[in-house]
């Protein structure tokens, strides 16, 4: 324990180590937060659920904080629901089962840009006669624009933006532009209070009608949304534990196995040493990425299968030779001889006497290796070999790439996961370098 405390005391004297540790701690906190607030099944449902999960978010929206840096403010989504705010709805019984169910959605719109979409959703309860609605748009300057008349099924959506009749009535412009445009200058937004008036009529006793209006903005949340309306934040959050777990497991798995193999080779010597060295030479020249691509294509794209292959292939490499040379020295130590003299078994000598001696050398290398594996996972995902269910940073980049994010100007979509990848890599690298200096005092002067 005192050694650990000493290590931390020493780490504090390296600013880069402090920065690296802070980054890693923040990452771990984010990872825990993500896993607690969004359970695994929920994350998969959110990411794979499709359009029904993301009814209320705009498509390809930028992060909301972008407005702080713009003179022209981009709109946020306006969501009004009669189920949540019953005052929007007035019900009047006309007798004989007939009743009006009028709704008035009134909202202020002072943004400088047009919304990205406008939709209305209705839900109704009835036995056989479907309720009727007629919808009207009232602009701040008092113009009334009739939108449509609908008979409502149990669940009905009316996408105003896609209603070509409205578009025609507005003179051929898109409804989300035409409905908000200044009559004098159609390129500008007519700022003020808008109303959507819905006159509903139900025909049965006990029949109800509820509606909601969503004016989709151009910005959403902290991270924005992608081409399928998904909140990118979900993938950024869930990508953190996935990246950390992948990086750490791959680094721990491969370096510990490498060390154990090297120790076994040295301890047993003879043909075991020979075999391990020859296998190592063969595996060293196998290309990692093409093999991973083949595994992804023909076997499984599960992140755990890929992790297994990565560990298997990373065990071998120059590391095994480096450790071997260290162990050759350790093998001659008096304490190993003493351990044999009091009857220690081969396994005990390898794991309790040889490996612990080399672990201090391993730790900095191991920490510096973590980002390699984080990047590898992202690389595979960008190549389309990411895990099919889990949202990860690499998959975000892959989605952004395939839907032409940069071409369409959706920079945030690429920059956010890239930023997290770089920061993670930087955090581990800075800690690794500092640890290297602590464990290898010769580097301190540099």
């Amino acid at each position, binding site marked *: 324990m005192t050694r650990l405390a000493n290590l931390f005391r020493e780490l504090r004297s390296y600013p880069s180590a402090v920065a690296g540790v802070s980054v890693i701690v923040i990452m771990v906190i984010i990872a825990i937060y993500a896993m607690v607030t969004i359970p695994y099944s929920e994350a998969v449902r959110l990411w794979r659920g499709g359009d029904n999960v993301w009814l209320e978010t705009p498509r390809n929206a930028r992060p909301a904080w972008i407005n702080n840096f713009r003179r022209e403010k981009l709109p946020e989504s306006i969501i009004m629901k009669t189920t949540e705010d019953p005052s929007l709805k007035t019900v009047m019984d006309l007798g004989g089962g007939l009743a009006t169910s009028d709704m008035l959605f009134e909202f202020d719109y002072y943004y400088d840009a047009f919304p990205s979409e406008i939709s209305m959703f209705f839900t109704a309860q009835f036995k056989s006669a479907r309720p009727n609605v007629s919808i009207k748009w009232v602009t701040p300057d008092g113009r009334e624009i009739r939108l449509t008349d609908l008979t409502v099924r149990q669940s009905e959506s009316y996408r105003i933006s896609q209603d070509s009749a409205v578009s025609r009535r507005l003179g051929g412009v898109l409804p989300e532009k035409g409905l908000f445009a200044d009559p004098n200058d159609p390129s500008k937004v007519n700022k003020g209070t808008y109303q959507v008036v819905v006159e509903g009529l139900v025909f049965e006793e006990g029949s109800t009608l509820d509606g909601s209006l969503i004016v989709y903005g151009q910005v959403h949340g902290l991270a924005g949304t992608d081409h399928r309306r998904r909140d990118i934040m979900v993938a950024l959050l869930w990508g953190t534990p996935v990246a950390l777990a992948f990086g750490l497991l791959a680094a721990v798995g491969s370096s510990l196995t490498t060390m154990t193999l090297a120790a076994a080779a040295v301890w047993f010597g003879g043909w075991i040493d020979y075999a391990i060295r020859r296998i190592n030479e063969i595996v060293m020249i196998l290309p990692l990425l093409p093999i991973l691509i083949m595994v992804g294509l023909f076997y499984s794209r599960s992140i755990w299968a890929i992790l297994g292959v990565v560990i298997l292939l990373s065990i071998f490499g120059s590391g095994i030779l480096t450790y071997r040379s260290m162990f050759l020295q350790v093998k001659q130590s008096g304490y190993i001889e003493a351990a044999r*003299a009091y009857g220690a078994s081969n396994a005990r000598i390898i794991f309790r006497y040889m490996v612990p001696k080399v672990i201090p050398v391993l730790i900095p290398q191991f920490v510096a290796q973590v980002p390699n594996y984080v990047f590898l996972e992202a690389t595979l995902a960008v190549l389309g070999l990411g895990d099919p269910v889990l949202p990860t940073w690499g998959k975000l980049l892959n989605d952004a790439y395939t839907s032409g994010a940069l071409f369409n100007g959706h920079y945030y979509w690429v920059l956010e996961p890239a930023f997290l990848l770089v920061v993670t890599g930087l955090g581990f690298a800075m800690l690794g370098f500092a640890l290297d200096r602590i464990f290898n005092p010769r580097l301190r002067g540099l």
Partner: protein
Amino acid sequence: MPNAALKGQQKPAEERTPILAVENLHTWFEVRRMGFLKAGDVRALDGVTFELYEGEALSIVGESGCGKSTLAKTILGLHHPTKGKIYFQGTDVTQLDKEQTKQYRAKVGYIQQDPYGALPPFMTVERILREPMLINGITDKDEQKRRIRQVLEEVKLAPIEDFLPKFPHMLSGGQQQRLVIARAMILEPKLLVADEPVSMLDASVRVEILQLLRKIQYDHNLAIIYITHDLSTVRYFSERIFSMYGAKIIEKASTKALLKNPLHPYTKALFEATSDPDAENLKTFKEVPAGEPPSLMNPPSGCRFHPRCSKMIPGLCDREIPPEFQVTDDQFAACWLYRES
């Protein structure tokens, strides 16, 4: 002097039982050329025979490379003998299976030359002492504590609680060697093999450590093999002294007899080379044999010392290997000079 205390206890040799009997022991190391071609053998031990009795301290002296350490390690089972037998309490330990070897090793303690190297740097004192017990099936916590307490008291590492959480690098050289002795004693062995236990220590603590070893030996009636190249320390220690040269034992004698009158020319030369703080040394000339220790791959024919020996008998020493001649009651020498006796 502990020696004085011992003299009364010593029984005649024929009444005592040998705890260790080594018969015609050979340990050869194969030397290869290009990884697979056999180039020859290094004959590190070439026909060593002796007996060690219960409670006896035996010193083995000789220069570097004469096979002293190989003898120790072969007895410990760290090297496998090429030929010959080692009987420990009557059983041949060169033919044991894995489990029996483990039991044998528990009965033999090992004290190494470099105390710092002999202690795993990443283990605490407590862990170091617990390891042999864990390996040899002493898992009861109270028993472990009792033994740790006992051995640390015996080697005078006190207060015990202060030492238990320490790492080897926090101890002084003398304390480290005490810990090594404690570790060797924790399995309550019958035989201790001490391979130059004090040669890496400060002169100031050497005698202390040797007296400690001697005391432990009396208290437990231990047999000790004490290997050294430092003749100035053997007088503190042993009942018998063996002198080794070129992978063979060339002289066996009681300490008293050997210190008074070494027989073999090599042993004589070895004693000549001992540095005593005596001003008279300035005026005397010491005869030190010229030349180098023999190659153990191609040892000289006949007596291995003959190329350096001033009393070499031509035609005999360089042809025939000298057998062991008994010169007095307690002194044997493998030298043709004593062929008459």
